[in-house]
């Protein structure tokens, strides 16, 4: 029953929330893009770029929050490029998204080599440290997990709340949701669909980049190649799993991360009978399983991946 005991360990839940944090940023970012009608497959590359941008800012002497802002700006810039090609020009969101991922990743690696031509082991920075919130963090079991994390995790919570609020409670959110459902409704009310979509993709991409930065500035303390390792693609699956709703997507991300943390611990106690690769595969297999599970009743935003031109209906 060792496997079950894992679930009762505080350290397990602390790890789960830590693993969930970058996914939460990325999932919210993708959700915002898709709610406005744009599938952003640039997510994986944008996370790589964000991870590097945040880290290199701090490495170059900037403070941690400056790093986060720089990462967000870099993400927004890639988002702008993505949106320029897919929104007014209406290019295939699949092809452009993959292109952005290749572009952002390769540009990041190039820059990394430019900045650090000769290093073999990546240099470290002083990352965000856990900041327990007084009294809240003392709640048994969940207190440590939820409220003894780094400030970036708290930012992730805030991002979910703000995303949910904006989408469902503000005039801007109405416009974003309508742009993903029936863009002509937005246009008919005198709002530019292109502006809404470009804006959503930029904001979404900024969040993805912060998700990447979490890896180098909170989860780890250095940048290395392939560190994003498919988290962007998993975020896309989580958006579908969460039915394009921030709350459900958050739940999905935490469940997913808990599973990931669980398999790591399971791997340690399994004593090498099962090859470790099997455990590492689990998150990806789980993502596919989750997609199959919800595919039947998934209600996509109707205008997802459909380009829109003024005066068209």
């Amino acid at each position, binding site marked *: 029953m060792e496997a079950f005991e894992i679930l009762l360990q505080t350290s397990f839940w602390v790890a789960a929330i830590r693993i969930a944090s970058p996914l939460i940023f990325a999932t919210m970012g993708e959700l915002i893009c898709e709610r406005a009608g744009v599938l952003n497959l640039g997510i994986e590359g944008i996370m790589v770029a964000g991870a590097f941008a945040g880290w290199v800012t701090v490495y170059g002497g900037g403070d941690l929050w400056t790093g986060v802002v720089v990462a967000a700006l870099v993400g927004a810039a890639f988002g702008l490029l993505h949106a320029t090609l897919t929104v007014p020009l209406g*290019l295939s969101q699949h092809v452009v998204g993959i292109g952005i991922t290749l572009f952002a990743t390769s540009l990041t690696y190039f820059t990394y080599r430019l900045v650090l031509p000769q290093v073999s082991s990546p240099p470290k920075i002083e990352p965000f440290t856990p900041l327990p919130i007084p009294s809240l963090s003392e709640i048994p079991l969940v207190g440590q997990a939820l409220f003894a994390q780094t400030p970036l995790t708290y930012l992730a919570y805030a991002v979910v709340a703000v995303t949910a609020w904006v989408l469902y409670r503000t005039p801007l959110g109405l416009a974003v949701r309508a742009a993903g459902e029936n863009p002509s409704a937005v246009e008919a009310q005198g709002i530019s669909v292109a502006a809404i979509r470009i804006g959503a993709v930029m904001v979404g991409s900024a969040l993805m980049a912060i998700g990447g930065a979490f890896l180098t500035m909170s989860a780890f303390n250095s940048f290395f190649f392939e560190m994003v390792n498919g988290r962007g*693609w998993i975020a896309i699956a989580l958006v579908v799993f969460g039915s394009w709703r921030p709350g459900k997507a958050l739940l999905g991300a935490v469940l997913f991360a808990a599973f990931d943390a669980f398999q790591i611990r399971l791997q340690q106690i399994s004593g090498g009978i099962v090859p470790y690769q099997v455990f590492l*595969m689990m998150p990806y297999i789980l993502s596919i399983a989750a997609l199959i599970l919800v595919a039947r009743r*998934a209600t996509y935003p109707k205008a997802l991946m459909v380009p829109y*031109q003024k005066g068209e209906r």
Partner: protein
Amino acid sequence: MRLEPKPAPSFAATLLYPLGAVAATLVFTSVLALLAGASPLDVFLLVAKGAAGSQFALMETLTRATPLIFTGLAIAVAFRAKLWNIGAEAQLYMGGVATVVLGTGALPLPAPLLIPILMAASMLAGALLLLGPAFLKTRFGVDEVVTTLLLNFIVLLFVSMLLEGPLKDPMGMGWPQSIKVLPEARLPRIITGRRLHYGFVLAIVASVILWVVMKRTTLGYEMRAVGHNPEASRFAGIPVNSVLMKTALLSGGLAALGGFSEVTGLKGNLTSDLSANFGYTGIVVAMLAMLNPLGVVASAIFVAGIFVGADSMSRAAGVPSYIADVMVAVALLTMVTAIMLTRFRIRWR
């Protein structure tokens, strides 16, 4: 701003816009070269020299182009039917796995028998791998982009598991690699002393066959129809789901041939670095070729040239070789824009 379709793209436009895309790519890479402290002209000359400046360089470029032709064809055929196969990387590895499982002694056959069997087996392995996502797409409506992407990670771990387990070479000094395939399974070199092997010829043959299939056969017609308009295709009596399945088999099989050719022609065994992102680069190759199978050969050689050239340029000029990856990605983005602009006119008012 709005886009208006042009009835017939002018010849000048079909020439001018792609040239513009190339120019934009060169300008962007020039900036990167300048940032790296090198003269752009030197960089380009060195890349060109490294890619095609000698017989050796050219042979290296063609060697590198071989797997890219296979993955490029795999993507071209899939994208033509709008089956978004982003998993050529995984399919290529599955081809390599099948080749190694059967080619290292399990089947002691002479080359004329063994090689076709290995080809067929590897194609089958890749085809079956893509059949899963295609089935999930047609049956449950699961987006194949995400499933094929995730499968890349799963398969790479699977390969790593095999290479540290059942397929591990006991003489490999602990390296995660398989034992070498039988000499009968090896594709011969085209010119002795050079690495270029008959896998390249196989790739050319595959692209010609695929071109004929796309242009001349009912299957090619069905794939194009389904890609352009699945609803109209279904109405006309084209069995859309079965066409997508056939497309998946063909696409996965072609990508897997890339794995077969790398193992039997170049490496001799399976390692977890069999592919240098060939699956992803194949997307660029296919898009640059506008999904035309014959064009894939040209664009694969071009892209391979950039990579091979950049490697040698990097050593000489001190510019990180990742500049090649950037260049290829930028070429993809500028080229899809250029293709759009040849078909549409932008009206600002």
